[in-house]
């Protein structure tokens, strides 16, 4: 009975295993890099991590709803290009606010397009968002043919400094978790999980499955916008037409490392946040453990595969011992 309860705890809190994994890699990180928990280092790490965290949060909402969004990275590229074409170092706060609102609106619009095509034309999410990623790349290149851009210095300074001795990213993560814990209690969350777990059953029960699917991509678009905003704050507004492209696959790996099942209907954003942190800490460890430059990619990939294979490996070993 006790083991059954434990199983239930893990089944309901899919990020627990990931959390344990994070604690382990953080421990290793501390051994090779003693100052990792110092405010300055922590702040730097989290600051550069925030864009991917936001992107992975959006990705996990899509994945929970039974979809996949391969366009998030190029969307970040496009929205960053959009932002830096509007905002200059001399922009007034009003202009900046307007630009932020417009970037968020553009992100949601792009997500809406993805969602409408997936839900109403009934095209497979992966290939659809792959196709729209070309469109977003193209627009990014149109807006920003050459690398460039910059934002008011005060803004990036504010973003780089801790607030009340706590890294700014902490507040952002706390806000994300608060947002999710509120969302999780709404009827919309029930619809989201039902749609991802079994679209047909949800439909037969009266869940507006198509509308829910569309909203997941709109969320993803909004979070891509927030990701591009924080990315530009982090780089001081220096952008290029493909700045976010590589973040797509990382966002998916983070979601999976966070214990969210790719087939949908299960998981949460806490897992995605943990997943991003695991990815980053592994990179940290490799760097500070003095792994030769040319071997870093390989070691990184092997550790990630090992982390993914862990649960399956344990099951396999347990089964062969059981025989």
């Amino acid at each position, binding site marked *: 009975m006790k083991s059954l309860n434990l199983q239930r705890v893990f089944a309901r809190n899919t990020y627990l295993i990931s959390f344990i994994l994070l604690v382990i890699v953080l421990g290793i990180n501390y051994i090779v890099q003693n100052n990792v928990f110092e405010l300055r280092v922590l702040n730097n790490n989290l600051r550069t991590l925030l864009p991917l965290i936001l992107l992975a949060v959006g990705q996990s909402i899509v994945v929970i709803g039974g979809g996949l969004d391969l366009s998030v990275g190029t969307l970040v590229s496009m929205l960053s290009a959009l932002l830096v074409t509007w905002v200059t170092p001399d922009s007034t706060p009003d202009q900046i606010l307007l630009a932020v609102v417009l970037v968020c609106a553009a992100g949601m619009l792009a997500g809406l397009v993805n969602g409408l095509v997936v839900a109403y034309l*009934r095209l497979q999410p992966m*290939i659809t968002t792959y*196709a729209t990623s070309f*469109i977003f*790349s193209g627009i990014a290149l149109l807006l920003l043919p050459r690398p460039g851009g910059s934002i008011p210095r005060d803004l990036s300074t504010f973003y780089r400094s801790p607030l009340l001795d706590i890294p700014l990213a902490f507040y952002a993560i706390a806000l994300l978790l608060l947002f999710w814990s509120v969302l999780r209690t709404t009827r919309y969350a029930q619809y989201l999980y039902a749609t991802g777990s079994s679209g047909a059953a949800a439909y037969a029960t009266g869940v507006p499955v*198509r509308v829910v699917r569309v909203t997941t991509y709109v969320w993803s678009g909004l979070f891509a916008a927030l990701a591009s905003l924080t990315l530009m704050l982090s780089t001081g507004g220096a952008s290029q037409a493909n700045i976010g492209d590589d973040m797509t696959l990382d966002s998916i790996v983070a979601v999976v490392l966070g214990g969210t099942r790719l087939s949908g209907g299960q998981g949460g954003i806490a897992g995605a946040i943990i997943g991003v942190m695991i990815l980053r800490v592994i990179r940290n460890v490799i760097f500070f453990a003095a792994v030769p430059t*040319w*071997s870093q990619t390989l070691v990184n990939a092997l550790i990630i*595969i090992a982390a993914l294979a862990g649960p399956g490996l344990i099951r396999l070993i347990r089964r062969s011992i059981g025989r």
Partner: protein
Amino acid sequence: MNAQTLRRYLTPPLIALLLAIALFFAGGLINPDFINVTQAINIVRLAAFLGIISAGQTLVIISGGEGIDLSVGAVVTLAAILTFRITGGDNNLIGVGLLASLSAGFIVGLLNGIGIALLHIPPLVMTLGMTGVVSGTILVVTQGEMLGATPALMSTYIAKPLIFGIPGVILIWVALGVVMWLLMERTTYGKHLFAIGVNRTAARLSGVRVERAVIITYTLAGLLAALGGFMLLGFAQTVLLNLGDPYRFPSIAAVVVGGTMLTGGKGSYWGTMSGALVLTLIDSLLRAMGLAEAYQLIVFGGLLVLLIAVYGRELNLRQ
């Protein structure tokens, strides 16, 4: 011919093929120089590389279980670099280079298969992780230096006109098409492949060793991607660290445009061949039109959405 018989014969692969032909002549309207034999052969030659690289992807996607192979690009690069390095431009070592490439593809595919079938890692992340491993291995081995050369014979037999002006790679592609058809339609493995793509429980209860079939499928995919990389070297003549990357997602797009369901259990390689032709044609057409790169990307993405909208649609919830 009434609508129903029309629908029966107008299968996705055929639509894609007709579309490819129509696109070719449409290219002529935009730019009369587009239509000539040399240009046609050149486009088919380009499509052949994508087609060969997509062969394994076809098998993987048909095998179902969210099957996908994102490691093809990295394997292509690995095979090309291995051949480049091992032969060092020596024609006598081409065989050794091919064997080494195929062995490397075999190992990568086998590892993918084991991770997916036995350790239950989702194919998307397993093959993505494997991409990192392969790229990492390349870095470790080469230390960033691309030493070696391409044997002259490879260019002769693969890229340059061989018989009646047709390059060897096209002949090899056609031969591969026949082999793939036989493999999928006339062998026990092929039948088991479709079975596990549709319903793994039913397949197992009919005596299909599902895990084994999955491992074989990913192993074949690794082998075929390595073959593609070997061929690509004959065309590219030189290697880059990201030589195969541009093939990663197009290999999936070619399969889908060819009418193979991403959910598995249904599809054909000749569909993928048509899909590779269509994608290559669109690409060539956009270049021939002299559009700026940004517009090329936008138009390509839009056309791709349209293409899969024609028949790549999923079942409606309300019938």
